[in-house]
């Protein structure tokens, strides 16, 4: 933790040096040339130079934080851990579910592959953006990227065997996608109304086969999904594909990140924050009783 603080202080001092340098240069140039417009160019140039100068120290601080705090906490919670801060769940894995609109730009990081209570899982932070173009009154075209999903994507081994794909999307979850109207008959999704009106009000269920939807989504499971939704600030989507359960939490959060460089590292607070971020993974396994393998067998 001392080493982490040293890296933070070093990064902070470098940034302060940049700021002081820019101010001094600006003041000197205005005093000497009496041309205030120079200040504008110095600020722009200073910002670019500061960004370049700060890149490495920030990366070192971030890498040290992930190594010292995140990796350590993950190791204490999980077995068979494989953690890569700069990797993510591959684009193809999520696209293959065919249950999420994949936009035009995809970024993922903080890849974790491990086991909890014997259950293998993968997770990473995922950011999906869509390119949008607009034309102003002068006829100039502007391109911007708009976030369509930002949050966690987790993949768990599921404890029941089923054939059809099933999706539960909390109302308000953005850009959930189902291939409803085109494709082979057995691939088509149909909206499924569960017997619980409360559940139907909060969630939408789509499935390739109604029986499998009712098989997976038992009354107890519905209750657990509702509990999880109540305890998570983001919107949830559950996709059952093959023998895997994909869970997406759209909460606009980037987890396992260090705080700002101007605030000293409070070990207790940092570890508490990381534990609560890890707790989101364990919460889903515990609440959904994914370690109960009663229904998985070979006859």
């Amino acid at each position, binding site marked *: 933790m001392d080493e982490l603080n040293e890296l933070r202080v070093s990064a902070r001092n470098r940034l302060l040096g940049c700021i002081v340098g820019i101010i001094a240069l600006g003041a000197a140039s205005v005093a000497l040339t009496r041309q205030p417009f120079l200040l504008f160019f110095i600020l722009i140039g200073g910002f670019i130079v500061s960004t370049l100068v700060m890149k490495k120290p920030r990366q070192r601080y971030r890498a040290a934080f992930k190594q010292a705090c995140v990796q350590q906490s993950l190791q204490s919670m999980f077995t068979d851990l494989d953690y890569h801060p700069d990797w993510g769940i591959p684009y193809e894995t999520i696209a293959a579910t065919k249950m999420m609109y994949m936009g035009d730009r995809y970024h993922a990081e903080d890849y974790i592959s491990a086991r909890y209570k014997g259950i293998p899982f993968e997770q990473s932070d995922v950011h999906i953006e869509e390119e949008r173009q607009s034309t102003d009154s002068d006829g100039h075209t502007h391109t911007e990227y708009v976030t369509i999903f930002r949050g966690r994507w987790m993949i768990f081994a599921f404890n029941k*065997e089923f054939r059809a794909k099933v999706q539960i999307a909390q109302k308000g979850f953005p850009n959930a996608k189902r291939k409803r109207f085109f494709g082979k008959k057995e691939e088509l999704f149909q909206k499924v109304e569960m017997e619980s009106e409360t559940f139907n009000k909060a969630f939408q269920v789509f499935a390739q086969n109604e029986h499998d939807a009712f*098989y997976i989504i038992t009354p107890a499971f519905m209750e657990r999904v509702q509990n999880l939704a109540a305890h998570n600030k983001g919107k949830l989507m559950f996709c059952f594909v093959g023998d895997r359960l994909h869970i997406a939490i759209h909460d606009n959060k980037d987890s396992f990140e260090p705080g700002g460089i101007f605030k000293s590292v409070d070990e207790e607070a940092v570890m508490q924050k990381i534990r609560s971020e890890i707790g989101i993974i364990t919460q889903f396994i515990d609440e959904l009783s994914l370690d109960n393998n*009663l229904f998985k067998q070979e006859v």
Partner: protein
Amino acid sequence: MNPVLIAIIAAVVLLVGYVISLSNRLNKARVKIDEAGSDIDVSLTKRYDVLTKMIDVVKSYARYEKETIFETVRIRQGMTMQEKNEANRVMGENLEKIHILAEHYPDLKASANYNTLQKAIADVEEHLQASRRLYNANVSRYNQMLVAFPSSMIAGMKGLTKEEFFSAEEQKRQDVKMNLDL
């Protein structure tokens, strides 16, 4: 053309369209009940198959058990809901007897075969529950349409009647007399 006449024709067309749409909704609801009913058949058959395997496994243990008697179950196509309920009840009772028997024979309870079948029966029962819930959800929606106006009028004209629910596992326990030759 007289505007009043146009309005009347439009109203009649709309009314006929609405009646056809309601009639179609009732037809679709009936089809969904039939599909869900077939789903119950599949699940009952799976339960029957696993139960038969379980009985084969426990038979040798039960040979000297005078009181352990399994009731005959018959599964066939085209069973009424009442017959399905009855078959399901009997299978539930047979399973209960197998569990009681296993309690008396630790060797049986510990055997790999028995444990595999126990897992299989848990899964099969879960499938049966899914089929039951799906069927009953469809029956509930259909029965609601039969009593709600204006679909109740169309249902009356078509002579549709309420559908029977598929009961949850029969709670009633009764002595069943039969021999061991299953």
